[in-house]
């Protein structure tokens, strides 16, 4: 962050952490205090003439604050509603001043690239998508946790090489890749190369790098239920498609899960999520189409098997 601050001429940086992450907050605050003690933060850092300081901002439980403009609103002490864009944060961000918003992962790559050079970094990954990616592997795997792998590593390698395979020797059913609003993938995707460019061709995303692995016992409608309930809960309520769309989606998926769904209900899920993709104010609502359309792509028969068949 200090390097980023130096690059853009910023004097102040903020680290916004979810309030739930008590331990991370504690550690970061300690690290910042220590950095100040060593003269790595504050006035005239290492006599370079450059001054920069960091502050930790504790979130208060709102997923939408991951959206950059909602995050800025929250930093200003307000409700985390996304702002109109343009103006983008780089021209008018925090308190109306130009602001760069980046993920931790992006910033964490910077020191290594500066230290070892761009060619070194390009040595990892693929031509189109160089470098590495940090994954959070969770779900029904033997050893869940964080890994860093080259861009282009296959899903199979990530699950079976890095995460010890499926837990209790069960069969792989699929994975939800890219976070809560990521894409479901079926077994046919095990050998797909995981990188930004390649996944785009499969209408999937790397997103946050979260890979949720599901074994054969997982109920795909239940998974959709969990995802949709989460988004209904986290919708900020600003725009019509997200506020009312998530509500309808939840009602429909609950109906299907309860065995009362009809074929038209599945069609409605798709239709509503498409309107949300096209008209939601921010990425939170826009992204929900992905888990819905991908679940139908790879697990079509299972989902259709859960609704009442037309007579």
């Amino acid at each position: 962050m200090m390097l980023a601050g130096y690059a853009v001429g910023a004097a102040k940086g903020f680290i916004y952490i979810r309030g739930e992450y008590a331990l991370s907050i504690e550690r970061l605050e300690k690290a910042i205090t220590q950095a100040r003690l060593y003269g790595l933060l504050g006035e005239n850092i290492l006599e370079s003439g450059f001054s920069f300081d960091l502050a930790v901002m504790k979130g208060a439980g709102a997923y939408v604050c991951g959206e950059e403009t909602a995050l800025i609103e929250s930093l200003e002490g307000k409700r985390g509603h996304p702002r109109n864009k343009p103006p983008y944060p780089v021209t008018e961000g925090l308190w109306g001043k130009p602001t760069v918003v980046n993920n931790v992962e992006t910033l964490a790559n910077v020191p290594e690239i500066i230290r070892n050079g761009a060619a070194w970094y390009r040595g990892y990954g693929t031509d189109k998508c160089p470098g590495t990616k940090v994954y959070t592997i969770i779900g029904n795997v033997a050893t869940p946790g964080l890994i860093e792998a080259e861009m282009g590593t296959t899903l199979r390698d990530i699950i079976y090489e890095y995460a010890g395979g499926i837990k209790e020797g069960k069969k792989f059913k699929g994975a939800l890749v890219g976070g809560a609003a990521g894409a479901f993938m079926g077994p046919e995707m095990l050998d797909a190369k995981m990188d930004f460019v390649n996944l785009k061709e499969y209408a999937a995303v790397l997103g946050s790098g979260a890979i949720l692995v599901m074994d054969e016992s997982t109920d795909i409608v239940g998974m959709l239920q969990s995802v949709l309930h989460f988004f209904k809960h986290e919708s900020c309520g600003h725009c019509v498609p997200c506020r009312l769309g998530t509500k309808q989606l939840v009602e429909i998926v609950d109906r299907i899960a309860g065995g009362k769904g009809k074929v038209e209900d599945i069609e409605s899920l798709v239709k509503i999520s498409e309107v949300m993709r096209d008209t939601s104010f921010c990425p939170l609502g826009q992204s929900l189409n992905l888990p819905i359309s991908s679940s139908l792509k790879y697990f079509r028969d299972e989902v259709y098997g859960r609704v009442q068949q037309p007579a």
Partner: protein
Amino acid sequence: MSQEKQCQCAEVQEEELYPRLEEVITEHRGKGQDLIMVLHKAQNLFGYLPRKAQEMVAEGLNVSLNEVYGVITFYNFFSTVPQGRNSVKVCLGTACYVRGSQEVLDKAQKELGIKVGGTTEDRRYSLDVVRCIGACGLAPAMLVNEDVYGRVKSPHLPDILAKYE
């Protein structure tokens, strides 16, 4: 009868906390941008955000009462009703869900005899749902106050809960 007593006792304690809130506000006087930070601190003091505390924060930070109330009702963390002494939060994020956290939640509701969002009569526990506490590798996870419990199975629950008075 005993309940009545307890309530009064809680009120007396609450009154005593206001001077401490005043100290917090003094540090941030006139700084509306610190609202969320101040509310975190106020909630740590009271366990929730009583109306009087909201009014004091609004005046002290020079923001409208509406802004304070709007922020409180937006963020999950903040509560306007008194909470139990121990806050039990079961994670229902997708990672925990896929590893059976719904079962853990059902058991918790049964064990405590309250629904999600509720507080036990003796004010010992409040039960809530969270969506990801950053412990996906430990799924299914739950929080009691600041303590994270991973790989929770429903039979573990009574022992976990019993640790908190």
